[in-house]
């Protein structure tokens, strides 16, 4: 191959690399913001930095009955599905095992993302310092709230960016679109039926909430795995209950 040919190839490769870089820069604002957090969007930076972690955490605990590491669970479809109501005695209704389910899930999310929050704030700080800002960061509290159609994470870390003027940020909100709030409301109702009567009828819920699909899958030991799915969004919450079990025999 002659030298002209080699040069042509290098030029083509160079153009391709530049084109890919431009495309990534243009079409991936998230990447863009990670590379260069704008001076006016630390909130966007935090949203981008944390939303995947929150989403992953929510997905895990949604499939595991509301706990990242379930203590007592049944293996269903390779998932550890936590018992939210349980009895080991035949012919008895179950005892609710997680009475404050919503709070428990909020706490689980808070704990699970705590480390990532610190990392994100450090990244944020570093990136601004590299841009010549004098950065002051004071650690605050993290609260996660399950709201209708949303999961809102509020960070009260104080951030001050100084380069001439000083910009202050006191609250960061990360909002994730999710129906966990609604699904937990249904789950609590089902648990109330399970603990009072030993059984809940999925059809009742599906009749009231057209967007909802409720599956009740009875296992061999009379454990029931409930799978609640929002058919519009695909959001899912599943949990297990063992109530009023009948033995094989007496």
């Amino acid at each position, binding site marked *: 191959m002659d030298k002209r040919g080699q040069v042509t190839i290098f030029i083509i490769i160079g153009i391709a690399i530049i084109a890919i870089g431009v495309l990534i820069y243009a079409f991936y604002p998230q990447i863009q913001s990670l590379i260069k957090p704008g001076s006016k969007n630390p909130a966007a930076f935090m949203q981008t930095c944390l939303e995947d972690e929150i989403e992953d955490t929510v997905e895990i605990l949604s499939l595991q009955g509301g706990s990242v590491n379930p203590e007592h669970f049944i293996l269903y479809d390779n998932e550890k599905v936590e018992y939210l109501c*349980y009895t080991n005695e035949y012919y008895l209704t179950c005892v609710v095992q997680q009475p404050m389910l919503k*709070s428990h899930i909020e706490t689980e999310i808070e704990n699970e993302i705590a480390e990532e929050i610190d990392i994100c704030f450090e990244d944020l700080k570093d990136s601004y310092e590299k841009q010549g800002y004098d950065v002051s960061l004071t650690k605050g509290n993290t609260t996660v709230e399950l709201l209708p159609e949303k999961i809102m994470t509020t960070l009260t870390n104080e951030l001050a960016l100084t380069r001439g003027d000083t910009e202050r940020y006191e609250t960061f*909100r990360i909002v994730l*679109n999710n129906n966990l709030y609604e699904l937990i409301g249904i789950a609590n109702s089902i*648990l109330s039926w399970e603990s009072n009567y030993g059984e809940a009828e999925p059809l009742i819920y599906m009749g*009231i909430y057209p967007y909802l699909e409720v599956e009740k*899958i009875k296992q061999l*030991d009379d454990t029931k795995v409930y799978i609640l799915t929002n058919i519009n969004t695909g959001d899912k919450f599943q949990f297990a209950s063992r109530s009023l079990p009948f033995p*094989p025999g*007496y």
Partner: protein
Amino acid sequence: MNKNYFMIGIGMVFIVFTIFFVSAGCCEKTIDGFWCQDTTLDLCDTGFLSTTSCAQTTFCTSAGTCIDSAKGACTENSYKLECESGGGTWENKSKNDIAMCQEGCCIIGDSADLRTYVECKQLASDYEIEINFRGDIKNQNSCFDLSYVTEKGACVYEKDYVTNCEFITKEGCLQKQSVSSGEGGVISNLIGGESETVERATFHSGLLCTAPGLSDCAVSSKTTCEGDQVYFLDTCYQLANVYDSRMYTENENQWTKEMRDYWTYIKEPTCTVDGPDADCGACEFLGGTTCSAYRRGEQGMPSQKPLGDYVCKDLACYYDVDNDGTKEKYEHGESVCAESEGTYFHIPLVEERDENLRKDLEDITKYNLPGSRYYKLQCWNGEMKPQPCRSYRNEVCEETDLGSGYMMASCVVNDWRGCFEIANKEDCEDDVVDCKWIPGYRFDYENFKKRDYKDEQGSCVPLYAPGFDFWEPESDAHALCSINSLVQENVVYEQHFMGNRNKFKDTDTKDAAHRCLENCYAIPDYGKDLTVSFLEEFQLGSDKLPSGTLGDYSLSKREGYYCLKDRNEPDTVDNLKVGLEVGDEIQCAARNWLDVDRRRVKLFYTYDQWLNSVKQRAKSLGDCGVKDNFVETPGQDGSELITVIFQKLDQDLGVKENGTIETIWIGDKRIDGYRNIDGGLEEDLENIEPSWKYYEIEE
């Protein structure tokens, strides 16, 4: 005179039910982390145990309500410590008795749901809106109705010097006004929108954006899904009224006042939907239709194309329940029992049953086989989903026709345990219980031998045989299947003094039957060629044969004649003796015995009747590893054996000489060549306990 008698002892599976209480106390928390469980003490977390049952403890006895005071959430049937360990407040009251836990209708934006006041207040605070709580509304549907009464209309505003229109709530429009005046808050973030600069937002209640003079938004044939209905969209992609193909035309000359009004004011749908529909968007989810993108030829789609891209799709299911190769149609919400292998298909509700059900279920080799399980199939949203009933056939699937072929199925508890509490035919075959009556042996082995007690002479067993986990080493099934498994029956057989008592195998079955004195039905072929009803009458009175003499039949005339050996002793089995044959008569008086009851009702009249009864009863009790399972894997051969032993008995019924154990039945297979006092046939089965015993008695 030598008289050789043989006695037969039979054994089949008999089940005695015992409830094992292994609980040693109440664990407030187990080492596995469960709360309030009755269990053995070694499974208790340290410091959380009590030696009494949970029902007797103070901490687990009465479930109270756990209150999340900060958020207003209340959970019933929770226990003190588990609640407080999670930061809640526990009250020993029902949720209904706690003021803070009373729910009302909480209206947030255009949605509404039942919440406690504190929950609603928290939500309103999160959304930075005024709380709208209706404590007087406790009903879910009434509350939902409020979500649709929110005032809606056209919100017209200017943005970047352009007039815009959005079809939204009045509240939303007011918020635009507040945003335009710089008062935007967290709500804009929560609803996923961005702060925007708008001017002069004006709300036109009840009008659509296509109302004349409001904006540049114009009518269009575009549609979209909103909830479960199809809506028109205008050219600004704002919602208009429910899609109705009669309300739109491309030909301007064909527009009527009604059509123009339909694109000016908010109106209720004027068309109705009943099945897949390309012309009307008023789908009803509970009625079996919902909005869907139009996909030609797909299941549930209308045959013609709609104006826009969306139609009312039929949510019916098409599923081959009966496995005949053709899919049947089931409506949305309809359910039917699955035809799962080894179960009885399509059991009707109690009040709709006829005799055929009981008759069919007598075929214990076909229905309720080990491993089988009932399933309900639920049609929902176009998909037929199987819902298993309880395992071990603790539930069966029952179904009913609600009218016009619309089926409703449900898993119903199979209360087979209750059958064993019933001791008479009438109660056992009552429609309200799923049991069946097997005439013959009773569970207490009482034998009344009287016609008046006929309806109590039998066993009440489950109509749907339950499943047991007999393959588990620690299973209760072993006790259930084996305790009292030996059912022994004694046959007294008299042999002519010239006969060889050691060669039973040379004895003709018919002759043995003819010379039988007691419990003759256990002799193979006994009563062959005669009906049970005939034999019943024969034994109890007529003495008349269809033709010929007794020697022509495998039948004994002498059976059923009893005398009291000791006149002064009560009429018990021990005091009974077969009468002496004098000519054609049986006479107690000839032996100076008391003729107390010459003819008594027999448990069984033929060999087949006896064998079928025993097998029916044993197999109906549950799964003990005997029956073939639902995929036709055979049961254990050694589990259903009928074995015999011949023994010579002396005049006082004492054993004079033992014969060998012989197997005459394995499962449903009869093995010929038995009745041998000299040696067994099945050397490899020697270790199996005999279930029949033949005794030879010398008189």
